[in-house]
């Protein structure tokens, strides 16, 4: 293999990796409706699988119920906490580390789901 083709392959690899990372980092929209956390129209029953770098958008789709959402990791450290969300309001946070985050509404204890973040 010539020097130039190796160099080309190296830079191509870097480019592909960078591109992949860019494509993988995505935005996941979680809604709050009928006092449940949902993705699309489905209640989140299983851990929501995401990647480090993804952004989780939490939106209140209720007609007249407010929510107050926060998340803690497995060490019980607070990962994020939003101010109260009235219907129509949304907030977001970026997943910085691999692991699990328990997301809850501090007002409605029936509302909770788990985020499972991998690298």
């Amino acid at each position: 293999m010539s020097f130039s083709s190796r160099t080309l392959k190296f830079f191509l690899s870097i480019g592909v990796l960078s591109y992949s990372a860019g494509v993988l980092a995505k935005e996941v929209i979680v809604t709050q409706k009928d006092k449940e956390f949902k993705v699309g129209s489905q209640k989140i029953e299983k851990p929501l699988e995401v990647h480090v770098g993804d952004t989780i958008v939490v939106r209140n789709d209720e007609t007249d119920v407010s929510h107050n959402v926060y998340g803690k990791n497995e060490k019980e450290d607070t990962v994020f906490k939003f101010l109260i969300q009235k219907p129509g309001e949304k907030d977001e946070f970026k997943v910085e580390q691999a692991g699990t985050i328990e997301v809850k509404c501090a007002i409605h204890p029936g509302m909770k789901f788990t985020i499972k973040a991998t690298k």
Partner: protein
Amino acid sequence: MRNHKITLFSVLFMGIHFGFAHASVEDDARRFAKSYARPKELKHPAKNPHSVEKEKLGQFLFFDPRISGSGTMSCGTCHNPALSWQDGLPTAMGNKGEVLPRKTPTILNLGYSQGLFFWDGRAESLEDQALKPITNPNEMAMKDMETTIQLLNSSETYRELFKKAFPENETITEHSIAAALATFERSVQSAEAPFDKWVEGDKSAISNDAKKGFIVFNTNGNCVRCHSGFRFTDDSFHDIGTRTSDKGRGGLSDFKEFEALQFAFKTMTLRNIIERAPYMHNGQEKTLEDVIDFYDKGGDEKRPSLSADIKPLSLTAQEKSDLLEFLKTLSSRDAPVVMPALPVFGKPQ
């Protein structure tokens, strides 16, 4: 003759009119009934499955006053089955007779709860909740759980009861005490109330006024916003504007910065509510009429944390009266609770 015709016509018309009126109230109320039905089954957690032995042991522990600092206070002292599992006081009484800041909440139907527990929701599960009052210095005031375990171990009967309830355990543990208490608490359920019979389809089980009250409950009264489902609560936490300096859920370290949780307390069940006066976390309302007036005026205190759901309702006197009639239909005639003869304590093992 003509007058007779008119009279006959009037009577027929009125009969038809009232007949329709009743039918429409029934139909209107029926629209809301479904979500209030009792769940088909009570689910015990996988980590603490039900057994008759565990429930029986839990009942012994629940009514045993000797597992308290003074030896006089059991769980059942405050959660008294003769008073709908409360104590009839505005706020609870402590181990030394002191007045505590919050009312004793009923334990009725907690097995159907999605959590959390206590007025501020500081316990995640009934198992988590069950031990806290035992060592709380203001409540049962046991020195610690080790002392409690030592005391229970001194009874041969208790040792046998624990062995039967937890055959996998060699000794009595904190975990097994909590599991037994929680299992017993899950067995505490209200029986069928007139409202339940109506939900099941018996149109005559509750009065027409009560049906109208149920409609108000689900519409103008806005009560359903939090008092939903079979237990008439979604277990949510709100500042409803009571006269209090108690921060409630907002006093927990996790939630000090959450404005909506300041002065916020758990939504209580409305089952057997007429028997459970006085009302609110601080017992500030003496009667259910007072409670209805409280909500009608939009609470007492207008704070930044006040729930957006608390606002003047402008209910009519008739609507308030109907609401009260409806709330009365939530009371069941529950079977008497048998107090167990407690095991004898001996020397610690």
